[in-house]
Every structure is written in C-alpha cells, then in structure tokens.
C-alpha cells in the first residue's frame, strides 16, 4: 500500500525558513540549485564549457591557421612556434585541433539537441493522438529505422549528392544526414513512455480543463519524460561526436579541407609510433569532450527528476524514508 501520508520532514524544515517570504521560486532556480549540488556534474560542465571556449578563442593564440603550410616544420614535434607540433603536411596541429574541436562540438550539439527534440515531439504526438495518426507515424519511423544509415552517409558525402556537396560545407551535410538517422530509437522509447503517462490522471485533468492538445504534449508529457530526454541529449551529443569521429575515420564523414577531431585521429592512426602527438592530442580532446558530457549526464537527470534520490540532502532523506515506509507497510 502506498503511503499517502508520508511527508518529508526535511522538506517541512526547508519550508520553515521560506515561511513569511512571499517569493515564488521559479522551477528553473530549483533545477539549477540541484544541479549545482552535484560536484562531478559541475566539473563536467566546467570542462565542457572550457573546451567550447577554447574552440572559439583558441585560434587567436597562434599565428597559424588550419590551411597555412609551414614548409620549414613538417612533421615536427611540439615546439615554441608550434605548440602541438605540425602534421606531415606542415600544418599547425594546434590550429587544426581548435578547428576540429569546434566542428565536433557543433555537430554534437546540433545533432544531439535537435534529434532528441524531434524524437520527443514525434513520440509524444504519436502517443497523444493514438489510433490512425499513431499507425502512420509509426510506419514512417520503422521505415527510417530499416534504412542503412552507413550507406546513405557514404553516398551523401562522397559518391552521390554532388549538388549537395557543392552548396553545403561537408560538416553541415553530415549534420543533416546524422539528424535524419538518429532520432528514431528515442522516439519509439518516448512513445511507449508517453503512452503510459497518458493513462495518468493529470493528463486527463488537463484534458478536462480544456487545455489544447499541443499544450498538453508540451507542458505535461515532454517534461515528464524530461529526465530521459536530458539523458538522451547528452548521450545524443556524445553519440553524434563519436559518429562523426567514426565516419570521418573511415573517410566518409568530414572531408578535407574541413577538419574535425575524427579527421585528425583518422589521419594519424597509421603513424602512432612515429608521430605520437598527432594521434594523442585530438584523442585526448575527444575523451575530454565525451567524458565531460557523461559527467554532466547524471547531475542533469537528478536535477530534473523530482523523485530522484540523489539530488541534495533534502531529497535524499525523502527517498530513504519512502523506502522504509514501503517496507513497513
């Protein structure tokens, strides 16, 4: 039997000092506070922000850019002139890393955010309307899942799609292709989650209040799968970065003259022994990037989830007590 009468004493205590103060604390503030309590997550966020800033301003600290060849330093290890050494073509590795990081972050963020957003709206819409709408949308989704993504990427970026490649930079093309193929799994998961949410009384309550459908989807369904969405955004960003690296590595992703971490890593694999800096530097940056995202992941989920057990001391006690009560009754 669920214990409806259990009240969190910590919350009451927390409330005591709010008493009298007639302030309405925004939910965003609450979420922000909870996130800031998680030290690992904050560290992850700091690393990620540092990398992002680095990718934009890092270029001003060197006179070299990603195209200029230094004929006097070809394949040289790090030195005062070239902070991270040069490639075999004599291009400054530091400049290339900055550029590559920017492209990778850009691809990751855009693909991660947009694909999850598409998945959320698509999945929730399917669940909300159900019936025929659900059937048709599910068919489109299944059809996309069955499409061989790798081949389409290969065709779009190298063989076919000449026109596209002429008009768009290769990173934008890759973003579009990754976007098309990255949202389906999440959408299906969200559909099933939302379907169970649809049975909950608060959705019915909103319907009976006459709240329009799109508002119910946006205000009730999407936030309630929020922790999953946040997890999926960070995972999606990581996934997109890795996909970019992988595609670029096998040569069907980003094309020279555009640089990305994947291009750098891919180009250097054959000479790890002879030119180790060319391999390790972009790899480290990639690890930092994906690692910081993973660190943030946890903190974000806890911050968004009201029933989460690890977001701050107040919340922690509720969960424990609930568990004890659960055992007790």
């Amino acid at each position, binding site marked *: 039997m*669920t214990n*409806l009468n259990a*009240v*969190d004493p910590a919350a*009451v205590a927390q409330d005591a000092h709010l008493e009298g103060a007639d302030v309405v604390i925004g939910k965003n503030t609450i979420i922000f506070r909870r996130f800031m309590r998680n030290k690992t997550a904050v560290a992850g966020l700091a690393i990620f922000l540092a990398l992002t800033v680095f990718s934009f301003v890092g270029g001003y600290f060197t006179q070299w850019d990603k195209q200029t060849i230094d004929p006097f330093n070809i394949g040289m290890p790090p030195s005062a002139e070239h902070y991270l050494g040069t490639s075999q073509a004599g291009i400054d590795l530091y400049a290339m890393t900055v550029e590559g990081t920017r492209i990778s972050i850009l691809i990751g963020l855009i693909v991660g955010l947009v694909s999850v957003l598409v998945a959320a709206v698509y999945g929730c819409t399917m669940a909300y309307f159900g019936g025929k709408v659900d059937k048709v949308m599910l068919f489109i989704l299944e059809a996309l899942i069955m499409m061989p993504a790798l081949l389409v990427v290969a065709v779009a970026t190298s063989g076919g799609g000449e026109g596209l490649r002429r008009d768009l930079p290769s990173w934008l093309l890759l973003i579009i292709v990754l976007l098309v193929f990255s949202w389906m799994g999440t959408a299906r998961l969200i559909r099933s989650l939302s379907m169970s949410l649809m049975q909950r009384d608060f959705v019915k309550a909103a319907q*009976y209040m006459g709240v329009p459908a799109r508002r119910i989807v946006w205000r009730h369904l999407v936030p*309630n799968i929020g922790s999953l969405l946040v997890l999926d955004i960070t995972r999606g960003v990581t996934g997109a970065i890795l996909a970019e690296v992988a595609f670029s590595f096998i040569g069907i992703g980003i094309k020279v003259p555009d640089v990305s971490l994947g291009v750098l890593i891919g180009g250097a694999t054959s000479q790890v022994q002879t030119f180790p800096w060319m391999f390790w530097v972009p790899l480290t940056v990639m690890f930092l990037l994906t690692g910081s995202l993973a660190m943030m992941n946890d903190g974000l989920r806890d911050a968004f989830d*009201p029933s989460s057990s690890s977001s701050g001391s107040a919340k922690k006690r509720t969960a424990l007590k609930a568990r004890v009560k659960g*055992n*007790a009754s």
Partner: protein
Amino acid sequence: MSSEIAAGPVDQPQSAVERLHIAGLHAPADAILSVRDMNVRFNTENGVVHAVRGVDFDLMPGKTLGIVGESGSGKSVTSLAIMGLLPSTAEVTGSVRLKGKELLGLSDKAMCEYRGNELAMVFQDPLSSLTPVYTVGNQIIEALTIHNPTMSKQAKEARAVELLAMVGIPSPKERLRAFPHEFSGGMRQRVMIAIAIANNPRVLIADEPTTALDVTIQAQVLEVLHTAQEETGAAVVMITHDLGVVAGMADDIMVMYAGRPVETGAVDDIYYNPRMPYTMGLLGAVPRVDVAEKSSLVPIEGMPPNLIHTPTGCSFAPRCPLAADACLEGEPALAPVPGPAAHRAACIKSGSLGGDVDVHDVFAAPPVPVSRFDAIPREERSTVLQLKDVRKHFPLTKGALLKRRIGTVKAVDGLSFDIREGECFSIVGESGSGKTTTLLEIMEFHKDQDGEVVIGGISNKQAADGKTRSAMRRELQMVFQDPTGALDPRFTVYEVLAEPLQNAGMNKVDTKKRIMELMKLVGLQPDHVNRFPNQFSGGQRQRIGIARALAVNPKLVVLDEPVSALDVSVQAGVINLLDKLRAELGLSYLLVAHDLSVVRHISNRVAVMYLGKIVEIGEVDRVFDNPRHPYTRALLSAIPVPDPQLERTRERIILRGDLPSPLGTPKGCNFATRCPVFAALPAAKQEKCLTLEPPLEQVAPSPAARTLAADPLPALDQRFACFFPDGELDEDMLVVHESADHHAP
C-alpha cells in the same frame, strides 16, 4: 508492568531480559499467542526507524483481536514480525509465544514449521497473492503437502475440495483446476482464506483482507472468515483501518498509533467508552451509513510523527486537542482506566474521558455549513447538469484477424438524471456498474454521443465548436480519486493551479492573486505554492486537486471517489472541506463513491447503479432509510457499521457471486441472477422478472411503503426499478451472527 514496557529496552538493556521473563510468567496460561514487548526497528542510513514500540497482547483460542490504526501506525509490521516475514534488516526484539513456545529468534527454516500450519496469514491484495501459473487446486494442495508429507494424493484432493466448498466457491471440484485469473477478486480472496485454513491453524492473521474489495464482496469475504473461524476454532488477528469491519467481528480491540498500542480493551469498551483522544477521533471521523443526522465529521489535524526520533512526550500530543504541558513530559504508559478490567489507555487524561464526552466538543468539529440554496425548494433551483437517456455500449469482439462481434457491453444504458444548483448528487454501485463510465461520458461532452448531456444550459448536441466546449469546461471541473496521480509531479503547486487559469486567459497578476485565494480557500498555507506535490500528505494533495477544480469558478464539480485513497482521519477533513465549499460557493457536486457512509454524509440525492442502469434514485435519506430495490437493500446491508452491538445483531443480506459477465445479462431485470427477492419468488412471478425490464417508477405513498412522513406527499423523491419490492427475501442469503431478537421482516 506496562510502565516498564513503555520505557523500552533502549534505555534499560539489562532489565529487558528479566522483564520479559516476568512478562512470560504473567501471560495467561491458556493464551494461544502471547506477544510481549515487541519492538521492531529498521536500520536506515537516516537513523533507526522504530516502527513498532512495545506491543503486548494475548490472544485466546477462538477469539478475535482487531488491530486498528492509520497507515504507518505499525499494524502490518506487527503482523509480519509475528509471522517472521520481515526482511533480515529489521531488528525484532521482545517475545512472541505460540502455545508457550518462543517464535522470535527462530531461523527461517524453523519458522516454516509454524507458518501455514499453526500460524496462517491472509494478505491484503488477492490479485497478487496467488501465483498466476498454477491452478488454485495446486496451490491449496501445496499448502497441504508441505505440512502433511504423508497424506495421500486422493486425501489431499478431497481436502482441497472440502476447503473450497467451505469458503463458498460453487462447484469446487471443477474449480480446483481453474487458474487464478479465472476468479474474480473476491473469489481469489476466498481461495487465499482456503489456503490459510488448510492445516487448521491455531492463529489466523488477516491483514486488511477486504480493503481491495467491493462492499458486497467484502460482506461475503467477512462472512467466509467468520465461517472459517467457526470451523477451525482458530484465533484471529484482524488488521484493518476500517472501524466498521472489526466492530462485528472482534472480541478485543487494540488501537495503534505511531507504533504503540494506545488503547486496548474489549470491543464494546473501545467503541462506547473510548478513553484516548485518538480513538475518539477515529470513531468520530467515520461517517455513519445508518444515521441521517447531519453533523460535521471530526478531523484529526496533522500527521503521525516521524518514528526516527523517539517521542519525548505523548506521540499523539501534537495532534491532540486536549494536549497540555503535562502531555509532553514522557510518553504515557498503557494504564488501566476506570471501568472494566481489561480496558487500558495510554493517556494521562483517560480518567476524564469516556462514553459521555462528545467527540465533537473535544475535537472542535466545524459547525455544519448552511448553503444559501438549502432554503430554496429543489424545483425552483436552476439545473446545472442534465443527462437524457445517455448510453455507452462497447462492442465485444473475438478473433485476432477477423473480428466478429460476439456481444455488447452495456456500460451505461439509458441514464437520465439532473443536478440542481447547490446540490450533491451521488452515484453508488459496485465496481463494474458503470459509475466511472458515466462520469467519462459527461466529461467527454461530444456531439456524437448517444444521448444528451446538458451542462449549464449548453447541450452536447450543439457543442460543435471549441468556444462552446471551453465555455462548458468552465462550468464543470473534476477531482480525481488518486491525489498523487492527478497532479503532475513536475509541477509546483503554483503551476498546477495556474494551468486552468492561464487556459482561461487570465493575466499573471490576477493568476497569482487567485492562487493565493484558492490556497486559503482549501485550507493550505499560501506560501506552500513553491512545493512539489510529493512534499504534501495525501489529504493535502487532495486539497490541491480540489483547489485546481475550483480555480475557474465552476458551477459543478465532479468528484470521482475523492476520499477513498485517504486515511479516515484525513478523509474527515476533506469531507468537511467539500461540505463547506458547497455551502459557501454554492457548488453542485456529482460524486461517485463506493463508500456509502461517505455518500450518506455528503449527498442530498443518490442514484444506485447496477450494470449500467439506475435501479433506485431519490433523496438520500429516503433511499437509505427506506430502500425499495433489493439491490439497494443488499448494498446497504453490506456496509459494516462502527457499532459492535448493532453489528452483532443485525441481519445482513449476503449477495451470491459477483457481477454477472456482460454477456450473461438476463433479458429482463439485470439483477435477477443475484436477487434475494427473486430467489424466493414462486416460478410464475420469476417469469415476469426474467422477461420484462422493470421501469423506474415513483414510490407510491401507499401504506405498504414504510415512509417516515405520515402526510402523503404528492410525489416522493424516490424512484426504483423493481416489480416486487415488498417480496420476501431468500432465507439462504440472510445471515445473522448471534441469536438476534428480531428476525426477517
């Protein structure tokens, strides 16, 4: 002795063993189960939760002990500790003696000797306590095999059939091969009882055995428990939150609060002469189905204490209206009170309390609110909701590929009623009678519905555009059964309440003002608007739900079992609030509830539904005091009343079986299959019931009708659908427990 117990072994670890020894000596020799100073602690990272703190009782053979209390008071933990079913993290101290043998401290394997043999248990949820993959026969035989390895297969089967017959399952031999999903909830609970009594246990522990069941089924199951006790002579420990359920069954009562027994005694002493404010509050919080008098219920404010901290004073003091400074100095021990010997209460003021003290004075129950509509005759008030011949039929199909229609489920079948301003109209009936579907039909408000729904003058037939619909939505709001599920866990209270207002197009400043107003209206602190719903207790959550429904100033509020998920003490507060709001704001309610006592307390008019049809409708006091339809009579008779005398002597109608399957509904009267009148009718009259559908007819003010009012009013507000309302009841369906002075009418 009890003063030592109250101190607890934490403070006096040395004396505990000694004390137990003395306690053991003091236990009556003939007690079948003796519990002494039982303490249960759960170690959590937060500290030690002291869930049960010093429980003692003796259970005599063949007697029944009722343990009552709110959720979280340690009732279930006590029973699980006796059974040795608590997780190993729980620390249990004290002594549990079954026939003089100590049970605490036995290994799990040693306990298995007793469990299911001498000690048996019936659990709350019958839907999950049977294994779905084995037949019920298998499961009964399993219980027999474990404790009687030498029993032959035939003997075991014969015993299983005998057991099923004993718990009242028709054609037990065939049903032995049936799987749990082929049984209804009530039937499964009967099977659970059969398994529990399989080995003639000496002690049967029933943990809320009927909470999950309908009232008519509850009456059946309680009857079965009674029979089982008579057959086996077992002592029964009955754990429940419903004071009505134990009133008729128990010999002794133990009231628990915050893990401690706060009052123990014989059932009559507890009910008629409570000496502890908590017991008084519990009794005053329950509405009575048999009393027409309108008085507010007694709410017990606040909530049970957190058991992580050892209470320094009386644990009930923070909620007690009588609390004085002396109450905060040490926890009062369970001490004998003046009067019968066995009656003990843990209250320093128990001497001044008793049967002659009115609980309404003690707990300061609010005055009965008077609505401005009360003075206006019903006919002159305007109609807020009208249903005309509303139907909802679901096709029943079979086959995966080619769906063929094999029948129709008539969830709602030709429903007509109206609700006037300032009135509370209730719909009652068993689950499956179409109450909820009726609500959904009203909330749906769509042009294509079968039948007409008129809300505040707007008919569903004209509601084509969104504008009319949203106008209708402002007239009608809903409060849900489960207060937890009805509030978006991600919304703060502010957002929950702001949603309907924003939807109505209110600006931000007004919204904030209105929300503060609403919070005060439903008795919540306005500065709690920043909290999330999980930071509130159940009663408070339901108040938020009510506040949300009232946000747009509706005329009619639809209440779907608004208090069934709440504890009695909290329930009383919510009912009082609903009463107050109806009077102050001139609201009308459409209430759906299975608890007829709540219905009687709050409603003005009531409709009894059976299989999608109204079988009786009318003014609540008229219908409840003078029910005409046999189904209404059966429903009312199934409600246990928190009055031991009445409960022991009154005669009750125990309906046979469950609601019939929608396919098996008779052509004539729906109720014929279970009707106690029908069963007693001669064949010629039975024919009429089976072929003709009884229309809903006005109660004629004839001498036969036992109306209380002597003057023959032209039209009584009571209609019913039965051909033979005055027919004799079938003797088999009537049960009287003890030899009563009055007999069948």
